């Protein structure tokens, strides 16, 4: 007696759950199309994935972006990013956003990624872009992850056309150039910046570096590249890195060379703005 009394409310609850489930299922079958149109929501905790998701997502999908995304010195899409809530990459705040998908970089703290997974979040990790092809691939990966494959496909197709147009205008054969970053760093061959320069008809291998490192002034002076490309970053802030540009030897050198400039944030992460950097290089070369 006791057991049956104990069981019947449970049974009623189970039956009720089945009923409500089937009602929900029936309703969503009837509703059909609107249920399909419910796009997954997304939060991003990395500057580069912030900009990828801003490029392909429906504005309604984005619940949170990293705080760097709305910094105009770091991000190409700062104004757009400023419309969304910010996060500082702590698992506690990101999990409370309740997004269906969390985008992180493969270099984002492994502890954060692991903790988010333990909390049951779907974390999509994106490799940093080291070429324009990487940029296309990442835009498609992000698009597929957030149900915006068609949009990201169209964006990538437009970008490829734009890149072809740039290449058609670029000088042949390649002209020699060197990238100088604040602090005397340069960027080597297997990088997005190198790819952008190549698209604009500039060959950047004075430093003979694979990735990034310090610029050897000796190599610079002996190679005498035709163009100096400066990547601007926080130029109005006083810093030792920017004081490097005031170095007399470098000033004398760049006074003799043709100087071009792009924004560091255009080539820090792969975005449509990376192509704008190549276009800016072409325009500046034409104006010289």
């Amino acid at each position, binding site marked *: 007696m006791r057991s049956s009394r104990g069981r019947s409310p449970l049974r009623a609850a189970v039956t009720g759950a089945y009923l409500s489930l089937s009602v929900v299922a029936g309703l969503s079958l009837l509703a059909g199309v609107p249920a399909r149109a419910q796009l997954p929501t997304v939060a991003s905790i990395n500057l580069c994935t912030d900009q990828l998701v801003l490029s392909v997502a429906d504005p309604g999908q984005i619940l949170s972006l990293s705080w760097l995304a709305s910094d105009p010195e770091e991000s190409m899409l700062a104004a757009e990013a400023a419309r969304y809530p910010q996060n500082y990459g702590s698992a506690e705040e990101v999990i409370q956003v309740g997004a269906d998908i969390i985008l992180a970089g493969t270099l984002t703290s492994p*502890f954060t990624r692991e903790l988010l997974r333990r909390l049951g979040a779907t974390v999509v990790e994106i490799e940093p872009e080291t070429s324009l092809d990487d940029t296309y691939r990442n835009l498609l990966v992000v698009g597929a992850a957030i149900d915006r494959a068609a949009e990201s496909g169209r964006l990538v197709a437009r970008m490829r056309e734009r890149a072809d147009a740039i290449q058609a205008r670029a000088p042949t054969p390649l002209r020699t150039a060197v990238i100088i970053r604040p602090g005397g760093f340069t960027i080597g061959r297997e990088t997005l910046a190198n790819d952008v320069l190549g698209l604009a008809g500039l060959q950047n291998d004075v430093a003979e570096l694979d990735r990034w490192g310090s610029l050897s002034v000796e190599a610079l002076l002996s190679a005498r590249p035709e163009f100096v490309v400066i990547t601007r970053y926080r130029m109005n802030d006083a810093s030792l890195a920017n004081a490097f540009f005031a170095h007399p030897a470098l000033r004398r050198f760049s006074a003799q060379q043709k100087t071009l400039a792009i924004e560091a944030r255009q080539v820090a992460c792969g975005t449509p703005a990376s192509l704008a950097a190549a276009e800016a290089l072409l325009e500046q070369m034409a104006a010289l």
Partner: protein
Amino acid sequence: MSGGPVPRRYGLLGSCLALSLLVLVPLSLWIGRDGGGPHFGFGTSDILREIRVPRTLVGLFVGGTLGLCGAALQGLLRNPLAEPGILGVSSGAAFGAVVVYYFGFAASGSLLLGTGAVLGSLGALGLLYALAGRGIDLVRLILAGVGINALAAALTSLALNFAPSPYAALEILIWMFGTLENRSLAQLWLLLPLAVPGWMLVIAAARGLDALTLGEDVAGSLGFRVRRTLWLVIAGAALAVGATVAVCGVVAFVGLVVPHLLRPLVGYRPSCLLLPSFLAGAALTLAADIAIRLMPPGPELKLGVVTALIGAPFFLHMVLSSRQRTAE
């Protein structure tokens, strides 16, 4: 060996420290942080179980380990300026972790990062053994530690030089500052199996440390195996400190400040200093981590930075007061 009466204030000190932990632990579970700065409340059960509890426990055990190992090393070297970093254990562990990070293994899970750190601290220990030999010459031991520290720092810089991108270099640097941010139960399970045997080894050396206060020769002539004490403390500290670096990076100065503050309260007996240092190290680390979460909105400060900001002026004060003492 009875070792004489336990100092009068020992019980009182222990109760005070335990009481402070009883206050700090619930506070640490209660204070969270998001983009808008600190917020108060225990949060959902998921947040409490997977974020706050692991962070609190990792903080407690990391701080406790550093306090305990600092006390044991100061007793062993009979030098109040000694701390786990001095033997190169922390920097060796940091280098091990950086190598794992640099070669990209870390992407497959942060447990590998931990394994690298523990291997690094064991490597530093092996080198220490080779350099200091089987002898018990403490000056040589400290010099070997300085050498290992320099080597590990150079190798870490080398790895940073070869980092695949500025972002990877930045991640490595940030990780080395030491932080409890976003640590989970996985890090706790990595920490405990290594740290607990480390504590045991260090505690097993307690009576030997008391004897060492009389000097190596006297301790030896009293029948103490001085070399056994030496290696118990070093192996224990390497294991336990290596594990802490593995889970939260280098947290500076806790091992220096805590034993030094407590020493007068326990009658200058190294064996009586061990447990209070564990409790006080845990309390200090937890308090620093709570302070970090109470800061105004913005990216979190790093725990290692905060403990260094507390510890460095303290260290300078110690140097000054030791000079005054010599002058007198």
